[in-house]
């Protein structure tokens, strides 16, 4: 969006002396100060990337890149730092959270955007916003004291594991997916809805055959960002996953994720162990950057199509 010429403030280089020299310098200086602030955001990301990489780079030498990325055992006492069990744990819990959370979130968004009366909307929308604000440690606590005993009853274990973590994460990603899906539905032109209703379609047919396909890319964006939230979530998972770095053994068996392993080990890790934890942080950073890049590529695709 470029601004029209007459909005760019008083001309500085034209012959018209509309601005005193002092004003001109002050304006230019302020502009540069703002620019520096904006560039700080870039510097922040660079700093995070550089420092995390610098501290985790050692995994290439010890335990070695192959043993790190391809290792099937994470055990600090044996000095083995293979991330595969943790990656599988993260994927299992994220997958479970998406299976439960995405339909609920998209359903809620469709409800808010297409069905709910203004009064219902005034109840449900604040609830969704509030869910986004609940601290993750409170979710974890709730999962620990409320949900875990129920899961223990169902699966016959202690209740720590994939199922409990997935359910808690599902609730946590509902606001992310729901808000973005609602935005996507809101940007579908009303004329399309009217055309569908005019053809005699029911509300559900309009939603299913017209609105959801029209908002498809926005909804995919929403799910990807929800996935990012689930992959990166830490405290809630630590409190209910059971934190055993082993491969998926069933919904009720304890499991560990990349994030939970960092929290558990960080309190006592030294040497190679600590380097490996920073190596895990690099993996997380790359995952989240990849997802952000994917969302941006998708929205560019969307903009080109429209």
């Amino acid at each position, binding site marked *: 969006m470029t601004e029209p010429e007459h909005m760019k403030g008083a001309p500085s280089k034209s012959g018209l002396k509309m601005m005193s020299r002092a004003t001109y310098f002050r304006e230019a200086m302020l502009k540069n100060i703002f620019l520096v602030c904006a560039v700080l955001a870039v510097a922040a990301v660079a700093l995070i990337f550089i420092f995390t990489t610098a501290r985790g780079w050692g995994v290439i030498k010890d335990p070695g890149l192959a043993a790190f990325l391809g290792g099937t055992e994470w055990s600090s006492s044996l000095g083995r730092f293979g991330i595969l069990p943790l990656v599988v744990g993260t994927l299992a819990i994220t997958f479970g959270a998406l299976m439960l959370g995405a339909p609920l979130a998209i359903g809620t968004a469709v*409800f808010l955007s297409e069905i709910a009366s203004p009064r219902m909307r005034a109840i449900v929308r604040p609830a969704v916003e509030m869910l986004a604000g609940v601290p993750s440690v409170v979710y974890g606590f709730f999962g620990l004291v409320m949900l875990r005993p129920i899961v223990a009853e169902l699966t016959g274990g202690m209740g720590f594991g994939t199922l409990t973590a997935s359910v808690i994460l599902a609730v946590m990603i509902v606001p992310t997916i729901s808000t973005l899906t609602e935005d996507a539905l809101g940007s579908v032109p009303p004329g399309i809805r009217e055309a569908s209703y005019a053809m005699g379609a029911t509300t559900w047919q309009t939603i299913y055959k017209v609105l959801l396909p029209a908002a498809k890319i926005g909804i995919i964006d929403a799910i990807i960002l929800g996935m990012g939230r689930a992959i990166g979530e830490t405290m809630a998972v630590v409190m209910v996953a059971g934190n055993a770095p082993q491969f998926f053994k069933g919904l009720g068996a304890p499991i560990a994720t990349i994030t939970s392993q960092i929290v558990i080990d960080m309190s006592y890790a030294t040497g190679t162990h600590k380097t490996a934890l920073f190596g895990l942080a690099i993996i997380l950073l790359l995952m989240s950057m990849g997802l952000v890049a994917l969302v941006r590529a998708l929205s560019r695709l969307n903009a080109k199509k429209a």
Partner: protein
Amino acid sequence: MSKRWANRIALGVLWLCGLTTVVVLGAVIVYVFVRGIGQITPEFVFTKPQGVNAEGGIGPTIVATIYVTGLSMLITTPIAVLAAVYLAEYAVQGKLVNAIRFAADTLAGVPSIVMGLFGFAFFVDAIGLGFSVLSGALALSFLTLPIIMRATEEAIRAVPRFIRWGSYGLGASKWQTVSKIVLPAALPRILTGIILAMGRAVGETAVVIFTMGQAVYMPITPLDSGRSMTVHLYTLAMEGINMDAAYGTALLLMAMILFFNLSTRWLAARNRRLKG
């Protein structure tokens, strides 16, 4: 199945989705409230935890939470607001703006545990601030920067253009227009963004546990270590000690978040009324 029945069933399912969301929130709030309300006494709020079972109150953790959040807001807010002013008012679309936006998006997506490890490696270790309120506040600033930046940019863009034209028409300079016309008009929404960021900072655990440490003293100077309410709740719950205090801490945390949420709502309503 007739299309009318399919419609009814599908709409029923969508209703159920909407209601489930409300019920889940209600369950969390009611559960924490019922189990925690008995704990909330002046003694609990103002005294410090004692002994291996963390008996007594959580006073220092409340102070540490407010301290680190306030300090972090003092650091982030000016930078984030000015950066947003640049993006919304000054920047010409191009590579640089693209890079800034990508950076802000990435920053918003960085998992908090990575932010915590980075804060530990950079502020605690490399710069040598140690486990301290200052380290925690600086690390939290990385987390809240994109939130305030995005809210401010949207707020500025929502200010109608003709107001600016009026200002330029009267001979005001760019900065005069921005500082006297645009920012005041955008203020309520900027405040909403700041409150939202404060909520995130108060509820954050993974960042502060590795930067502020876990000392249960009352932090006085910014270089003191401290334990936030979230870290306290985490420790109590994981070690299974003094669950009553855990419920009380969870309730106070929820009350703070609820307060922030209601403030943004009140601001938005007031803003609508003033404009209406």
